[in-house]
């Protein structure tokens, strides 16, 4: 018997190329399998649900009967309250607004742009240190350390602590990965410990920043007293943890998916080498073509709502398959073609609506830098394995390793 579509999405065997399954899914834009989540796969439906105030991101609104293979293990044991990603307005709005103050316009319009020099230095340093050009694991040696280093700098994590940070981040990211073969209690415990340790570390850092503030985001968040009042320590902790996790695992995959796509399209890679400004449209098309967040599994309905003639009951679990919407032929011409010259490109890669990717300006800039510098400096780069080995994760999808080789590293 053929596997259910839901299982096919989760099945690691399909990770390297999930797009044929999404194509299947789109035949029933609201796909529902006995007791499971309602899976939405078409562009316009996803987009309108992302703007629908009857849809909640708060797990407390999920009916206890909604069964969901991606549902995280009970949250109570974790020490941290949910970050604003898992909250509804008004709490969401307040925390996101406060977090945005030191990060983006209107209050900090130059924060991200002001990191250009630093981003460039980190990228250069990592490429300088790639070592043997005959075998590079781009994930381990580049796409992973880059965004983690950036988020550490942004938050104000001292350089000497970065290594510990990497380890916690790694463990926590892995815990978001619904690996059916791993022992759930074992994994849950590892994540729990990492979360505790990270929380304690951050708490110490926050205390330090309160008395001794610097220019970093954590200092600014810890000492903020805008119209919204101060953040509580718990809020600060969960916000910092959210920035850390959401802020890097996604970018790792975006960069890796980007290089993989370019290595499969040497003509585009060559164009980028000749003109680094092409990085901007390339990254945009990449967010459509291979988005690092494939689906949003954390939404639920506050009322019975009708989508394409199907009534989704109140309290149901929703999966919004962004990566599928991005390849919906009803919306995009020739959607399976990677086309950096595409002009009409309102993709769902960074979500939409109030939860649209908070770190988008930074992720874009990081990826633009990463891809254009790799294109410029790697001499005759090529894939050693295609497809590369993928992580188990169906939500945050990306290669676990990306073995490549090149003839040398240009200065």
């Amino acid at each position, binding site marked *: 018997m053929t596997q259910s579509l839901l299982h096919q999405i989760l099945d690691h065997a399909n990770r390297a190329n999930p797009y044929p399954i999404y194509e299947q899914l789109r035949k029933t834009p609201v796909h529902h399998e006995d007791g499971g989540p309602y899976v939405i796969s078409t562009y316009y439906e996803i987009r309108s649900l992302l*703007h629908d105030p009857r849809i909640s991101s708060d797990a407390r609104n999920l009916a206890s009967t909604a069964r969901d293979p991606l549902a995280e293990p009970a949250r109570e044991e974790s020490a941290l309250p949910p970050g604003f990603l898992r909250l509804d307005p008004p709490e969401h709005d307040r925390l996101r607004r406060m977090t945005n103050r030191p990060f983006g316009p209107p209050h900090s319009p130059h924060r991200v742009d002001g990191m250009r020099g630093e981003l460039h230095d980190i990228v250069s340093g990592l490429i300088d240190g790639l070592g043997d050009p005959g075998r590079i694991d781009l994930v381990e040696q580049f796409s992973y350390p880059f965004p983690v280093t950036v988020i550490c700098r942004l938050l104000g994590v001292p350089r000497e602590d970065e290594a510990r940070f990497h380890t916690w981040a790694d463990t926590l990211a892995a815990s978001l990965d619904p690996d059916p073969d791993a022992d759930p209690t074992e994994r849950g415990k590892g994540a729990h410990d990492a979360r505790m340790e990270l929380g304690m570390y951050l708490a110490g850092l926050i205390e330090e920043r309160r008395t001794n503030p610097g220019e970093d985001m954590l200092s600014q968040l810890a000492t903020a007293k805008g119209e919204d009042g101060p953040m509580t320590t718990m809020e600060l902790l969960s916000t910092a943890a959210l920035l850390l996790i959401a802020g890097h695992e996604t970018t790792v995959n975006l960069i890796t998916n980007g290089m993989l796509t370019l290595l499969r399209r040497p003509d585009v890679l060559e164009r980028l080498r000749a003109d680094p400004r092409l990085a901007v449209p390339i990254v945009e098309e990449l967010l459509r073509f291979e988005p690092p967040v494939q689906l949003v599994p954390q939404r639920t309905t*506050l009322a019975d709502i009708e989508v394409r003639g199907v009534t989704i009951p109140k309290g149901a679990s929703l999966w919004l398959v962004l990566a599928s919407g991005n390849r919906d032929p009803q919306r995009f011409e020739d959607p399976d073609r990677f086309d950096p010259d595409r002009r009409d490109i309102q993709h769902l890669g960074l979500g939409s609506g109030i939860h649209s990717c908070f770190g988008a300006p930074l992720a874009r800039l990081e990826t633009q830098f990463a891809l254009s510098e790799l294109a410029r400096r790697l001499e005759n780069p090529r894939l050693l394995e295609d497809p590369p080995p993928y992580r188990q994760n169906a939500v945050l999808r990306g290669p676990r390793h990306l073995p490549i080789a090149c003839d040398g590293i240009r200065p």
Partner: protein
Amino acid sequence: MIGDGSLERFRREGRIVVVGASLAGLRAAETLRDKGFAGSLTMIGDEPHEPYDRPPLSKQVLLGKAAAERTALPRLRSVDATWRLGVPAAGLDMAARRVRLADGDEVPYDRLLIATGVRAHPWPREAEAQLDGVFVLRTRDDSAALARRLEAGPKRVLVIGAGFTGSEIASACRERGLAVTVAERGAAPLVGALGGVVGAVAAEMQREHGVDLRCGVMVTALEGDASGRVRAAQLSDGSTVETDVVIVSLGATRNTEWLAGSGLGAGPRGIACDAGCRAFDIRGIVTDDIYAAGDVARCPHPLFGYQFLSLEHWGNAVSQARIAAHNMISESTDRIPHMEVPAFWSSQFGVNIKSVGVPSLGTEILISQGSLKDHRFLGVYGYQGRVIGAVAFDHARWLPFYQELIETTAPFPPSFPTVDRRSDGQRPIDADFPDPSVPTHGPTVTLGGYSPADRRMTFTPAH
């Protein structure tokens, strides 16, 4: 053009004239070229400047964040047109298909697009309007002059009229630390567009930001000093405001005078056209070669009971321009109607305001998300049991949902729970629009008389 190849010939070598070289004019020209019109294209504009963008004129420019000269509209493609800038069109001969220019030239056309927009309503007493320090704000030059004056640090600014433009000006002045008085005839700012419930929030925002807001009053006279500079304003409540800069923000007048006597259905309320932007003549018969788009056009909207709507919205100008351009060079069966749901944005006192639909047609409002008290909310407007408009204060990301409700004529009040529905959003209340017979700002036209012979149109200026 009945499949005899004449349309093809027109697309190849026809003559299109666009009067009004601003947002709608430019976007129409680009669309014409995009869709393959290869004939001659003439752009006529009374302003000496290349097309520029107006929204920044009351925002970034007044804040000193952008120079008025640097607001040129981005060109989406080359339009390869003959530009006649700095010359107004002064007349139209529909039979001979010619546009007469003020300098005496005549420009023949096969198809004409009128996009002459609106102009700021001036201070009605001419001598007072001439005083140094009295401004209106519509053009790039207006904005540059006003910005220069604000830069010089006047001791007080008086804004007459608290519609969107007036409120934005007041906001920019406060951000610059200038003392500001706003005088508004209505009960609150923005009340004509959004009603009294939301207007009360706008009033609170102004006061919280230190604006000396006076509602329910009219400015009755402006006074100048011996050197002809404005120095004070008299208000209808007997008070006086000492001021050295006055900005008259009393709404706009449509630029249709040049069409007087042409036989086109054009008047103070704009140019009446069908949903495909084809202009009507005064007999109510649609022309086939004259189109209108943007602020100057008045089109029936199927979603709003086929009412003729005239909208002063940026997005409306762009979408009508594109529709008009398409229809101008298409076979009648290929023409498309303008169906876009109206949308408008403004930014003032640090708040992003956006609306969809036509809130001013609504009679009731429901605060469906957020709260009025926080100045962050979403209000849904209802008219006869259906959703007709919505406004967002710092809540714009939800608007697509409400637009869908409007498009699908969803019932009002919406019955479902939403995230962030608070106590003030449990029940719809009267949206509190002013009695339409008492104008807030902007001129109105009323019809009087009974028999067709003595039936007259009465034009009531804004002040």
